[in-house]
């Protein structure tokens, strides 16, 4: 009912505005017949020309502001290929910003300089094949360079060689959390399929496969620094995506398929927490959170949780349902010793089954 009344008010208000504008129009002095003023005249052209120039200043200001203030959002790299990635990214960004800065100036400067005015004659300049050739061949050369560089990097990252000490980990995606399955002592992941899911066997390891008995399933991902990790990605239900921005890693997790991705983590959690970048970031974030908590308390709501320490994270990056926005897993990069100690403390699949019986 309220909605209905509000709608009526809005409609009547709009009618009132409309009538007022009609009255205003009728009260205007009668214009001469045929004096159509809806085509731009000299004054319009002059004003808009100036606005074009001002817009150019605004655009440069906006771009500068964003680069100046928001570049810090770019996550620090923590994997072997992060350096390659970042190089390619910044070179490409440099090239495109160069093009952007020049073309925007030309567009808006020309608009200002050649604004319409009485007596100005436009130049009949219909084509120039040489010019077309020049600005075709230059992008071809520049883009070819970028493509070749990009393809070498892509090949490096995707067609990886399996190193002798590679750690094979299955990332198992289900709505709405992640599980990590380590291959255990035998360095081989047991076969698994959703058809084996039953009770305690939440990721569907084939109970008849010996390789799977020593697999270790955890809710946190621990990675030893400096050692290649090969992720085998499996989904229980719908499409998900394993996104680990600090490691420059992303790969969809597809039900019915096992996808893979590999990198070598190069910065431990402890080390990255100590970097100036991360310290500054945590300061900023904690300031924001303290303010927000104050507001919440004041309005009678619960405070925000503490966020004392940075942890790497894995987040889901392919729409998967209602809680897609909160499907994450903590990632800890640590020394080999710390890693071994941690994994020894985790239960194997054999132990898990035994415990149930």
């Amino acid at each position: 009912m309220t909605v209905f009344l509000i709608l009526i008010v809005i409609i009547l208000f709009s009618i009132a505005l409309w009538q007022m504008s009609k009255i205003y129009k009728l009260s205007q002095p009668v214009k001469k017949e045929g004096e159509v003023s809806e085509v731009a005249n000299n004054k319009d052209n002059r004003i808009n020309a100036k606005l074009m120039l001002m817009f150019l200043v605004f655009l440069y200001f906006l771009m500068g502001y964003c680069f100046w203030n928001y570049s810090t959002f770019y996550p620090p790299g923590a994997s072997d290929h992060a350096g390659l990635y970042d190089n390619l990214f910044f070179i490409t960004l440099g090239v495109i910003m160069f093009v952007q800065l020049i073309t925007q100036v030309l567009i808006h400067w020309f608009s200002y300089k050649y604004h319409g005015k009485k007596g100005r004659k436009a130049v009949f300049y219909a084509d120039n094949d040489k010019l077309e050739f020049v600005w075709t061949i230059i992008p071809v050369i520049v883009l070819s360079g970028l493509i070749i560089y990009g393809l070498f990097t892509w090949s490096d990252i995707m067609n990886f060689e399996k190193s002798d000490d590679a750690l094979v980990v299955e990332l198992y995606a289900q709505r709405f959390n992640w599980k990590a399955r380590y291959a255990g002592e035998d360095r081989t992941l047991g076969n698994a399929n959703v058809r084996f899911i039953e009770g305690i066997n939440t990721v569907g390891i084939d109970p008849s496969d010996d390789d799977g008995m020593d697999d270790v399933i955890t809710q946190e991902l621990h990675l030893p620094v400096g050692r290649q990790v090969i992720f085998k990605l499996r989904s229980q239900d719908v499409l998900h995506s394993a996104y680990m921005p600090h490691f420059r890693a992303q790969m969809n997790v597809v039900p019915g398929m096992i996808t893979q991705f590999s990198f070598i983590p190069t910065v431990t959690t402890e080390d990255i927490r100590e970097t100036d970048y991360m310290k500054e970031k945590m300061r900023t974030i904690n300031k924001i959170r303290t303010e927000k908590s104050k507001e919440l308390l004041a309005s009678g709501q619960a405070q925000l949780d503490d966020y004392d320490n940075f942890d790497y994270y894995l987040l889901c990056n392919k729409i998967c349902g209602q809680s897609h926005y909160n499907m994450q897993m903590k990632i800890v990069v640590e020394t080999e010793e710390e890693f071994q100690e941690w994994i020894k403390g985790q239960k194997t699949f054999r132990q898990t089954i035994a415990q149930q019986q």
Partner: protein
Amino acid sequence: MSAHVPALDHGHDDHAHHHKQTFISKYIFSTDHKMISRQYLITGLLMGIVGIAMSLLFRLQLAWPGEKFAIFELLLGKWAPDGVMDPSIYLSLVTIHGTIMVFFVLTAGLSGTFSNLLIPLQIGARDMASGFLNMISYWLFFVSSVIMLSSLFVESGPAAAGWTIYPPLSALPESIPAAGMGMTLWLVSLAIFIASSLMGSLNYIVTVINLRTKGMSMTRLPLTIWALFVTAIIGVVSFPVLLSAALLLIMDRSFGTSFFLSDIYIGGEVLHNSGGSPVLFEHLFWFLGHPEVYIVLLPALGITSEVIATNSRKPIFGYRAMVASILAIAFLSTIVWGHHMFVSGMNPFLGSVFTFTTLLIAIPSAVKAFNYITTLWKGNLQFNPAMLFSIGLVSTFITGGITGIILGDSTLDINVHDTYFVVAHFHLVMGIVGLYGLFAGVYHWFPKIFEGKMMNKNLGYLHFWVTVIGSYVIFFPMHFIGMAGLPRRYYSNTAFPYFDDLADVNMLITVAALVTGAVQLVFLYNFIHSMFYGKIAAKNPWRSNTLEWTTEHKHIHGNWEGAIPHVYRWPYDYSKLNDDEDDYVIAGQDYTPQNVPLQENEEEMNH
């Protein structure tokens, strides 16, 4: 009314047809291309209002996550208990926003309107090849819009798997309730939409090939027609593949097949499906999905070519290069679809192939941008609102297009795929460019659509300047939160404390979106008011060369009272000087319409 008649009847070339019209046959079931174009425009604008309103709603949620808003309660009802938006309706809003804007506003609203309006008028034809088919194509579009809107009121919610509707999420109602009836209605609506689009496209292609007036060779066609013609060809090639994807999805949903499904455990049980792959759906979807963005883009670029040339009072620079670019873009657009799938799990070798083809497509796009800039150089620029939007379009096309070079590089896509970086890119290069093309076309051809009336230019200026500033403030900062690793389609970013410092940027974006959204009301007011009370203009208010401006204001079947004009030159003889170079070809007039024969004192340039 079709444009060809059997030999028994008198030929149509020499005069228009007159017959009695009822209200129904004139306004509702019209076969006249001009009325159909109006129908497309109005329907497209109405759908646009819904689409943009949705975006403002979810932007409110993103800027102030979990907050109460009265507008949520008012518009979302049970989906916003206590005024706080529910996560599932968030996903529905982004899904339907995308669907409506891409298909209903920027494909039907842009192509449908301007192909219908301009093709017969600019090529010199009485009407489309089949007026009947044209009418059916509009009514199918209308039905599809109604079905899409009806899905908003379904109890389990409208489709919520993203506008890309990847299975298994879109195939299994167990995964989200919205994958039930809401998704079914979405698929039905799209199937009908595809039929409508194909009918329209076939009509446009046949008309351009067969019904050009005497002297209108292909190389004398305005660039708008080239763009609309090639757009129609791309549509015919790619939309059927989306239909196939939709049909296979319907079969997986309702008939137990496993095209896209395999090895799924959901809702406490293993599904029977085996052997299918979601990646197949992705291939089929994006085989349309990529050409689709060029189906949006090319008409906007075609409109811009026309508006910039007319308002610069000089030819569009590099006509042949522009045509070649349109053809190159059309061809290349069919072989780049995999760049949406770099991290889909497909063979990395394919990633390399698609990176290569994608970076190729940057080249004709760059050539077009450079040609537009050169057209402005040494012009006599008339800043009508349409011209402002066209210039804004070139600026936005470059800003949005260049980030495509990052996204098209498979390596770089690894860290920005499905983040706000992508969202910023496609909104600038497709959304805003498409919208500016629509606005430029409406401001410029308003007198042709509404029988001589003009839109108010001051309101147009206000609309343009606030929109162009607002759009940049919305989408330029968005690149940076994308680079920060912020995923798209997240209901809220508060689950990750690491993203807390991005909240300010999200607020800035939302505020800019609200302002920009509000100023579109100025356009709507101008549009509606001018439709009834707009000042009547001269026959050719923009002093343009193309044939549509040789018709009278009043819409008549057959467009020209007498014979259809014959064409003697290309449409870009603006500011062409005569042989003595002391005045224009027609003395004192800086334009030479296409239907003006070669003058005595004029150099023949074989245009």
